[in-house]
């Protein structure tokens, strides 16, 4: 009879502890939606910024942009080409 009482008390105790733990966890998680939303917004913002920066890199490194900038700075295309050909040996056995 005594053992049964003890067993019952332990069970009730466990139930109470678990219930309190559940309340505590639920309480902690109840506001995480806000944090999650903020994090998701931040991810989206960073992804957008990344995409914008990527776009800028491509635009600024395009030949079209470089040529246009070079032209504005006064550079002109080189028309002359120097080719170093293979020299002939001093003597050729014919």
């Amino acid at each position, binding site marked *: 009879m005594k053992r049964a009482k003890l067993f019952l008390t332990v069970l009730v105790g466990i139930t109470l502890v678990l219930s309190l733990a559940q309340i505590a966890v639920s309480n902690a*998680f109840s506001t*995480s*939606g*806000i944090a*999650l*939303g903020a994090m*998701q917004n931040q991810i989206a913002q960073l992804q*957008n910024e990344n*995409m*914008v920066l*990527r*776009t800028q890199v*491509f*635009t600024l*490194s*395009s*030949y*079209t942009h470089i*040529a246009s900038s070079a032209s504005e700075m006064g550079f002109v295309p080189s028309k002359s*080409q120097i*080719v*170093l*050909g*293979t020299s*002939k040996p001093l003597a050729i056995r014919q």
Partner: protein
Amino acid sequence: MRWRYITILIIFLFAFATIIGKLFYWQVVQADMLSQLGKSQYGQVVNLQPKRGDIETSDGFPLATTALSYLVFANPKEITNVDAVATQLAPLLSIDSATISAKLQTNSYWVSLKDFVPSQTKDEVEKLNIPGVGFQEDYSRLYPEASMAAQLLGFVGKDANGDDKGYFGLEGYYDRQLMGRAGQAVQIHDALGRPILSQLSGVQQTQDGRTLVLHVDRAVQYLVENILKENVDKFEATSGMVGIMDPKTGAIIAMASYPSFSESDYWDYDQSLYKNPFITDLYEPGSTMKPLVMAGAINDGLVTPYTQCPICSGPVQVGDYAIHTWDDHYFPNTTMMDVLKHSDNTGMVYVSEKMGLDRMLSNFSKFGVSDTTNIDLQGEVASTIRDRQTWYPVDVATSAFGQGIAVTPMELLDGFAAIANNGTRMEPHVVDHVITSDGQTLTIPPKVVDQPITPTTAKIVTEMLVYTVNKGEAAFARLPGYRIAGKTGTASIPVSGHYDPTKTIASFIGFAPADNPKFAMLVIMNDPKASPWGSETAAPVFFEIAKNLLAYYGVPPTPGE
């Protein structure tokens, strides 16, 4: 007393039956609808748009990519001072203020002001902090190199459902691969609409579009487009085009035409510019066809480079027609070497007579004339060779010098490139490999189509074409020190059953270096006013591009050339 029990029992039974009936109605009959209603109250289906795949040149630089853009909209009910808002927005959105003002005066809650607005502009508009003006994120196609290779790329428009769809060129041909697959997910919200921990429960995974990596060399494409534009203007041509391919693999290194259009605002251009003329324009190639016919005749052992032409001392009569040379100069007993050098039509008539109709048709077929090349671009066309029964002797004769037979520039370049590749014709290809959204690389291997001539014949014809470049009409434009094989062409333009007496299509086709070709190239100038001849218009353009390409590829000059 008993009737009371019975009455109460009946009432209870009726009540239970009603409840069971209602439960059955909710749980079985209306189950799906109520389930959806429930989901819509706590969750929201989010459509996840895939990112369209990039199109990159061989150096990995995107010619077309996806950029973040915005749709700027307004709620006219919230805007009180319409004129002031219109004046503020007009310069930023590049729309006149009257148009904005008209939109803001409509009796609606939502009007679109401008789409595809870049993020910088969106930031500027946002700084104005105008109540009633909002933004919606969207993706748009970005072309970092502006209109480079526009007719090769095509553009992205909308289909009947308002979804993105690729049209023309690579965007059209590879549309399904580039578009990816849209995904869907359910976002669970709390009472205030904030997402809760369950996050997104994925229903269908988004799959981004595949990236196409081209054989196209960005530097070469840029160079070619600039030189082409400059020379179309210089020679007062109505248009011009250049195609460059690696004869050993069929890889398209560059393909340009002028005038062109801008993919980002294609709607501002005439629709005729959307097509890539290099694969869609049929024309009579004229003398640039002669090397293919000569190669066939040599391959069949009918002539050699030193065979003399016994009918070349004057105009040749074929049926009711007298066939002349282009300048009415005649060279009795001229050799086949000189037939190409002088671009002698009478010499080619002699070759056609030796070949006959069947051999001629077979030769055209082997070189891919009048057949699509299967290039991976949308819109390629080809003419069909007429039935054998409808060919007259004069048709056989004229087709030997490229009249009365139509080809696309791509067909001609592909056939001609076989001479540069030891007689093996390759399938032209623009895309080198495809990268899937999970990073897997799918390589497209070179494909052999046919072997129209033997390697020996190819070498002989190459020498004839080098001789033609060095001693022919375009010798003044050649590059000293380099062995380049090529042929000029000046084709008449058929108009309503006769040839236009004033207009021509001037062209030059060739490959370099002749002994180990890095590229085969075709240059075409349509109706150049400054000079009608291919030798004086297309040839200088060819050699100007070739000079730059040889330097770019680090090919040294051959001593003694």
